[in-house]
């Protein structure tokens, strides 16, 4: 998988009459860092969830390379879905220890527990939070929970990783550390899509693409030279 393309995507929630996304056409690629910039309530999260194949658009299509994702059978969908990971803005923490949380995705993919735990320690080391390994995950701070959530995505080495406001609970050092990790992810020929609402972060991330979104519409797309 190299590219997720959204073609004329419209979306509204079942309990609402208003369109959250209006006629969105864009693409997310591997080997690139894409930033979605927009104010709160502009539709960034919905766009991320559609791009990461969690939500089905009400109108329009999603192509994975040249395949129309929502017309594939369940097995094909699952194979593709397992190459993409979406990380929620509000970290979802499961019962159990930090390690239990981090290995969840690997266990879903049939990894042996011992092997999964070894990989978890590699990621924890990379994020410099090894000391949290066997802590009760429900007792962590917001920033620590966010790091666990990121570790859980990083361990899966997805082709494209969607991170919804990943910097919101992180301090300056952790933000820099995360940006470096994301650059390394890109160097490994994988893609990252990040949603943010702080314009000041764009320069620090220095993405390959910047998509500005407002009121459910893309108002501007810039590539790295223009940024």
């Amino acid at each position: 998988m190299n590219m997720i393309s959204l073609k004329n995507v419209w979306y509204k929630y079942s309990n609402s009459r208003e369109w959250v996304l209006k006629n969105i056409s864009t693409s997310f690629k591997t080997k690139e860092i894409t930033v979605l910039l927009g104010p709160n309530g502009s539709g960034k999260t919905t766009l991320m969830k559609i791009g990461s194949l969690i939500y089905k658009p009400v109108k329009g299509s999603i192509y994975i390379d040249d395949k129309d994702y929502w017309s594939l059978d369940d097995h094909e969908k699952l194979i593709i879905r397992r190459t993409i990971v979406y990380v929620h803005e509000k970290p979802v923490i499961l019962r159990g220890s930090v390690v239990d949380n981090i290995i969840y995705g690997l266990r879903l993919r049939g990894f042996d527990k011992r092997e999964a735990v070894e990989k978890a320690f590699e990621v924890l080391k990379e994020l410099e939070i090894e000391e949290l390994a066997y802590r009760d995950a429900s007792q962590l701070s917001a920033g620590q929970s966010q790091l666990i959530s990121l570790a859980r995505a990083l361990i899966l080495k997805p082709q494209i990783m969607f991170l919804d406001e990943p910097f919101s609970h992180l301090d300056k050092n952790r933000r820099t550390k995360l940006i470096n990790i994301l650059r390394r992810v890109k160097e490994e020929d994988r893609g990252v899509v990040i949603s943010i609402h702080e314009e000041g972060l764009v320069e620090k991330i220095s993405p390959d693409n910047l998509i500005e979104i407002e009121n459910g519409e893309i108002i501007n797309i810039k590539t790295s030279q223009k940024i």
Partner: protein
Amino acid sequence: MNGYELPRDLKMAEEEIISITLRSIWISGSAALIAFFIGVPLAYVLAIRRRVELISSIVESLVGIPTVVLGLLLYFLFSRSGPLGFLNLLYTPQAIIVGEAVLVIPLIMSTSFRILRNSLHIYGEFAVAMGATEVQKMILVFRESYLGLLASGIMGFSRAVGELGIALMIGGNIKDFTRVMTTAIALGVSKGEFESSLVLGSILVFIMIMTSIVLKIIGRGVRY
């Protein structure tokens, strides 16, 4: 007779009180268990669907159904000339179990529905984001909401053990067979045997309080 001895009618009834209490717990426990294993899967089926407001409203309104009305309906169902008369269930503990299970299913369904709906919103979407299959998603949702579901089962037991209408109408209050705490209390009062009724009433209240305490303890661990 010294001051520490139990009243005579109560002393004579001691064994019966224990047997009635155990029978009540057994019958209501079985009913709650059956209702749990029917109500929770049904709640999950409802929770994964959209636009179920009408069905969930109907289920919620059935929570408060008067037990005498349900008892009457079940009496017609189980009576010899009724559609289920061939089962010969009327005036048996099994009939009370079925009746109380029917009574409790809407309660367990509606509470479990809310718990599972919230859980699906958070953990269901998370599981999909992590690449889970439908079965893996369901396992995660149940794993993360088991305390809440357990609490709804205990709530169901509490409702079943305290009801009178069904136990009286389709159980028949037969001594050493279908007599449970609530029917024994009603009979005791009608015969003027207030002491044994008071003891049974106290045990019933004690069971209710214990159930409530267990629910509170479980509630502390529930996350949505």
